């Protein structure tokens, strides 16, 4: 079987069915866009139910984060059905809720598996992790143990417990290394990338570099809501981009940034600054807040050398000082505590 056959099959797949009138499709989508809240909260079909349940999961998890003092105020303002963001971030909420073993020093890293992973998949991941350099020990948190931990965390929250089924939760491996240094992290990062969809999320013990990340992404959140697009642009370019580049150029992997949120912030501030709408500024502020949360908990995918911010440095002429740049606590930012900020 050659690549030509594969290409032919994909072309056939791409051309399947009968195209519709794009104008009508647009009009219907436009009408639906104003009623999406209703659609997603209705019980009109099985294909939307996971979105609904995960949304509730996020909302409830946000509350837990705040109660637990992890710094999740920004989550409270997230749209319940914001599927585009949600699809890329719900795992990290889970990660932040469940990252206790790292905080308690029981593990160096947690690797969450795709909830749909088969037994063979689990075995494949286990073998890959055990082959990592510096590997010391591994514990598989199976579905029963995961559900038990989840029940402990959400004890008394009947709405949460009823909205999540055990099979929706990702099982995980708790990993310890003889020395969890830069080389071990880099190897883990590469292995997670190689495993692709089998890994649902990832968390690792934070290091000094992560705390630097907290300081600088915090600035984005502030600028996103309290400054002109010019200052935002300049601030991002000169401070954040340079800092990231400096960190990345240092050669040590940063295991706390989430590429999605970095990309989201980057997309919003590197496109057309004049067109950035207030909701987009709020989105950027929230993305920045999530970056900080992840930096603090070590949750999320790895920022690697390939991320390539590539913005270059420009001198800063005037940027308002950020009120808090060291605490990294999302709740201290005026930008992330109001859902209507910037409107």
């Amino acid at each position, binding site marked *: 079987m050659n690549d030509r*056959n594969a290409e032919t*099959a994909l072309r056939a797949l791409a051309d399947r069915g009968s195209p519709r009138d794009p104008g009508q499709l647009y009009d219907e989508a436009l009408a639906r866009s104003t009623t999406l809240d209703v659609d997603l909260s209705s019980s009109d079909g099985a294909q939307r139910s996971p979105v609904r349940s995960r949304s509730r999961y996020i909302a409830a998890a946000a509350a837990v984060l705040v109660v637990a003092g992890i710094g999740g105020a920004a989550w409270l303002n997230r749209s319940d059905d914001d599927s585009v963001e949600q699809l890329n971030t719900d795992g990290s909420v889970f990660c932040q809720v469940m990252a206790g073993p790292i905080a308690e020093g029981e593990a160096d890293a947690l690797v969450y598996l795709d909830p749909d992973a088969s037994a063979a998949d689990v075995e494949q991941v286990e073998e890959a992790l055990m082959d990592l350099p510096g590997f010391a020990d591994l514990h598989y948190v199976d579905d029963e143990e995961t559900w038990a931990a989840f029940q402990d965390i959400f004890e008394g929250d009947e709405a949460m417990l009823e909205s999540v089924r055990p099979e929706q939760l990702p099982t995980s491996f708790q990993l310890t290394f003889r020395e969890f240094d830069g080389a071990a992290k880099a190897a883990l990062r590469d292995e997670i990338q190689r495993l692709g969809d089998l890994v649902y999320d990832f968390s690792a013990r934070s290091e000094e570099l992560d705390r630097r990340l907290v300081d600088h992404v915090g600035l984005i959140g502030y600028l996103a809501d309290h400054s002109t697009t010019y200052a935002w642009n300049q601030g991002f370019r000169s401070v954040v981009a340079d800092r990231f580049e400096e960190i990345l150029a240092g050669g040590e992997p940063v295991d706390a940034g989430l590429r999605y949120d970095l990309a989201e912030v980057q997309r919003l501030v590197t496109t057309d600054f004049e067109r950035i709408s207030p909701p987009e500024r709020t989105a950027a502020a929230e993305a920045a807040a999530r970056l900080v949360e992840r930096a603090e908990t070590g949750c999320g995918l790895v920022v690697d050398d390939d991320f390539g911010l590539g913005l270059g440095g420009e001198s800063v002429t005037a940027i308002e000082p950020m009120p808090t740049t060291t605490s990294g606590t999302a709740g201290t930012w005026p930008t992330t505590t109001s859902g209507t900020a910037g409107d």
Partner: protein
Amino acid sequence: MSSADDGSGRSGRELFADLYPRLRRVAAVAAPSDLDPDDLLQEALARVLRHSDLGDLDHPEAYLRRTIVNVASNHNRSRGRERRALIRVAHAAGTDADAVDPYPSDLALLDELNTEDRVAVYLADVERRPASEVADALDISTVAVRARLSRARRRLREVLAASAEATFEGGAR
């Protein structure tokens, strides 16, 4: 959300009409066989329009493409769980699991690949898009794109080879 002019004299509706053929093909590749490509495209479009007019986006095609992949991927996860549940039920009832497979199709074999794999190979090998665009559509790094493409091409070849072998053996009997 209004259908505002994008500043170039074209409305969001007209912009979408221009993008439709390409986006529709991506949706057809991303969607599992039980999901109509236009339904997927409309779902993705509705979600984008909820936040912004197409004319306000700098790269509306890229943004819609990523949303299509996200929506399809979510649908796939849901469907995978439902299918496994059906298979468990079939086992419990002592029937053939294939008998309850709700997704028979002449193209269903491509369902063996996940959404991201199909889209990655389609964009790279059929539309000849650069790795950066594939990375953007899948929201992964270009390094990860290379790894994914390598794996997806291998899987696709295996799936097609197995299908051809099955067809040959079936014809030989």
